[in-house]
């Protein structure tokens, strides 16, 4: 099929999916232009004519990049993110810019200045977040793959809620150049796929060192294409006991039981492991990520670009106050305040420094588990299936706990993915596979085998 034809079909699907509020910018004209560009490419790239949704905190030059914030309303970047450049070179087409929680801060995509994203299977529910727009577009079949970003689970968690594959690569595998920074030591451009293969192909194209990002890692093996084997004999999978609490949602538990059973049947060996410091992951994350965010979001000051509002006093400080006070939503302001507080003189040691110490201990836990001989870890992705819109918006801590099983992996910088393993009451359940640093290929292969044997839409409780 020609790229032009794909662009037409994608446009029709985007139009049909408007009710999800999953996109912030798309046009048939832009899609057609992408198609014309792809058809003019010499030869067929690895992602020839693949339409891909791009989370709106990843910069492109042909549409605004707003981060779902009023403060960047209408802002058009003069350059394109490295990851998007690489996808385009491989023949992919940017289908649209996808809605998100403002500046990727949130777990439900309810914190968008441009309205919440609806869950494709139940409009009363949230798709998860912060990459909820990207997840919903893949789940609704609008695009086969989408870019999201992770700081603390923002792709795996919505992938689990929406019943799609969500892959977070190792920190340093994919260039962050052009990803609007939230928590720089955690941020990873990540990918949603309808299938493991879709996600893996996109990830493979984006991967590799970038001279424009000093935190990409050179000298590592390039990401090999996953090759799902016939069985999983010899594979050792660890089950961290801290990730299977007694009060785990029964549907989630049933989904994981189903996955464990399938692994056994495929010949894998399952072992109990322990990650004792993971229980500190959420509080640790909510010190480090806001601290970095407070600095990263300081540039939105109304001086050079974006929204500007002059306060009543008319001086520069009033400009900052009015611009930032009105430009940022409540959750973003909350995190800037927290981040500013934890870095303040007199509090740094008690919060930021301690959080860094705990972060190292959390990473060490994973290292020890892998050194004990397991190849992968298996956990639930989320403590519950998708919750209802409005359910947690008044209680930030409950919202933060939606990321309890994904945060620690981000702090450790490890690759992980969420795989749909069935449904409970019609709502998708996700299982999380975690691998050692830069060991994505094995993890994707195992996910590919599981995907083949597990019916992703089957009810997990009979």
């Amino acid at each position, binding site marked *: 099929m020609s790229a032009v034809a794909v662009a037409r079909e994608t446009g029709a699907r985007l139009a049909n999916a408007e009710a999800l509020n999953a996109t912030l910018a798309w046009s048939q004209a832009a899609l057609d232009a992408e198609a014309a560009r792809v058809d003019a490419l010499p030869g067929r790239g690895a992602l020839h004519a693949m339409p891909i949704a791009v989370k709106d905190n990843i910069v492109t030059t042909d549409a605004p*990049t707003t981060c779902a914030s009023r403060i960047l309303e209408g802002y058009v970047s003069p350059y394109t993110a490295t990851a998007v450049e690489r996808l385009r070179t491989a023949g992919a087409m940017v289908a649209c810019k996808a809605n998100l929680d403002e500046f990727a801060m949130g777990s439900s995509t309810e914190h968008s200045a441009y309205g919440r994203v609806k869950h494709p299977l139940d409009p009363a529910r949230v798709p998860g977040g912060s990459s909820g727009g990207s997840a919903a577009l893949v789940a609704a079949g609008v695009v086969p793959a989408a870019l999201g970003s992770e700081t603390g689970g923002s792709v795996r968690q919505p992938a689990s809620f929406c019943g799609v594959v969500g892959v977070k690569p190792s920190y340093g595998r994919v260039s962050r*150049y052009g990803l609007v920074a939230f928590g720089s030591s955690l941020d990873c451009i990540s990918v949603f796929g309808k299938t493991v293969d879709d996600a893996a192909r996109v990830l493979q194209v984006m991967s590799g060192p970038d001279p424009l990002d000093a*935190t990409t890692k050179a000298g590592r093996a390039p990401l090999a294409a996953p090759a799902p084997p016939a069985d999983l004999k010899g594979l050792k999978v660890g089950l961290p006991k801290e990730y299977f609490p007694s009060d785990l949602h029964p549907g989630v538990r049933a989904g994981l039981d189903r996955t464990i059973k399938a692994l056994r049947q495929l010949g894998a060996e399952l072992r109990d492991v322990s990650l004792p410091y993971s229980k500190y992951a959420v509080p640790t994350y909510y010190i480090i990520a806001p601290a*970095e965010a407070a600095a990263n979001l*300081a540039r939105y*000051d109304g001086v*050079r670009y974006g929204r500007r509002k002059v306060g009543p006093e008319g001086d520069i400080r009033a400009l900052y106050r009015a611009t930032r006070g009105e430009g940022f939503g409540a959750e973003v302001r909350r995190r800037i305040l927290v981040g500013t507080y934890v*870095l303040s003189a007199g509090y740094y040691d008690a919060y930021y420094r301690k959080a860094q110490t705990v972060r190292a201990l959390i990473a060490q836990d994973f290292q020890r588990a892998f050194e004990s001989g397991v190849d992968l870890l298996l956990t639930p992705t989320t403590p519950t299936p998708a919750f209802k819109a409005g359910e947690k918006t008044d209680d930030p801590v409950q919202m933060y706990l939606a990321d309890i099983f994904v945060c620690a992996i981000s702090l450790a910088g490890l690759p992980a993915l969420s795989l749909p393993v069935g449904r409970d009451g019609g709502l998708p359940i996700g299982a999380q596979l975690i691998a050692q640093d830069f060991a994505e290929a094995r993890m994707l292969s195992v996910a590919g085998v599981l995907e083949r044997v597990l019916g992703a839409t089957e009810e997990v409780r009979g």
Partner: protein
Amino acid sequence: MTWETVIGLEVHVQLLTRSKMFCGCSTAFGAPPNTNVCPVCLGLPGALPVPNGHAIRLAARAALALGCSVERRSVFARKNYFYPDLPKGYQITQFDEPLAVGGALEFESPERGRIRCGVTRLHVEEDAGKLIHDRYPGKTAVDLNRAGTPLAEIVSEPDLRSPGEARAYLTTLKQILVYAEVSDCSMEQGSLRVDANLSVRRAGDPSLGTKCEVKNLNSFANVERALEAERDRQVALLGTGQRVVQSTLLFNAGTGQVKLLRSKEESHDYRYFPDPDLPPLVLSRAWIEEQRAVLPELPDAKRDRLAARYGVTVYAAGELARERVIADYFEAVVAAGADPKDAAKWVTGDAMTGYNEVGRFVVPPARLAELIALVAANVVSGQAAKKVFTSPKLADPSAGSVRSVAETLGLTQVSDTSALAGWVDEVLTANPKEVERYRAGEAKLIGFFVGQVMKKSQGKADPKGVQPVLVERLNSK
């Protein structure tokens, strides 16, 4: 009651790179506003810094030239504050793990002879942009060309005891950094900037008094003036039983006074933390030694070598070593065959006058050496040589040999006895009374006759040759 002044200096120098600290933009001075900018130095969403390897090299060389040890591991940190000239809302600098620590400078104190001032640390950072207040009435313009320019910040120990010592420290620091070719240290272009901390205590008191920081110092002379004013202000406060309040002050060069910018309570909490965009800077021992190996001979070493090797005085050697080009010129003149002492006299004298005027030595070293040889051979007198030296023809090797230049200018001297005898006879004939007085025993008149012969010869006569001829003629009649 005697008071002791304690001063420490923070000096920012711009590193001599062609591109900025964390992006590829040009660092050229004087470009139209906001033309040397890109997403990185504008702080656009999604842009990331990548360190400039050459800036790190130059900073390491600067540190080694100042006797610091370069750390194997240093860390970039974010210094957070809001200001319109700061595009990211934070400056990338180094905080608790700087590039280098523990150096020292040695120099002459105006009061205490040769002293040592410790260099606490040297770290790398990026510059901010510039605010322009006089371009649009009632508005402030922002020029971000300078934003992201690489700087080294050099912090001294509080080892300086007078404004004069502060100035001497700066002069020495600049000399070394210019020598090492890490910065041009031009205060006019802002490539060297100074903040000074000063406190006062009772002489003999081991603890430090409350310090104030003085900013807006735009020349070494003004650093000295500002510190004198601040010292006097603090001494006056303490002398009348008042306290010094820790604060930041601005120097007004017009009035010669300092005025309060902000007190400590109003000071920023910069919330430093390691920059997650930049991995720790890890340098190998071999790399550090490479930087040490490419350092040129530094001023003190050069002075000592020139004195020892060429037998010139330590003072003259110090003058020659003041700048690398001066010493290089001197050594080239010697290499071209000139006597080192004569060469030193010329290079620190007439040649230096020209150098100070035009910023370079216009006479090729070989031609100066040739001129020096002509003086030694009595072909050109010392006086005439000065005229030959300033002739444009001397700077031009295609204008023939130095001797021919001197001849064309009529500045070669005559030492041929028969030619001299002609002028001597003319002088003796024209001054019969003086001849009589001389012959009557007034021997000191010989000087008068020599002068007359020089005048008659229009300076061409070799004075050393004139006297024997005069004596011979005066005594023979």
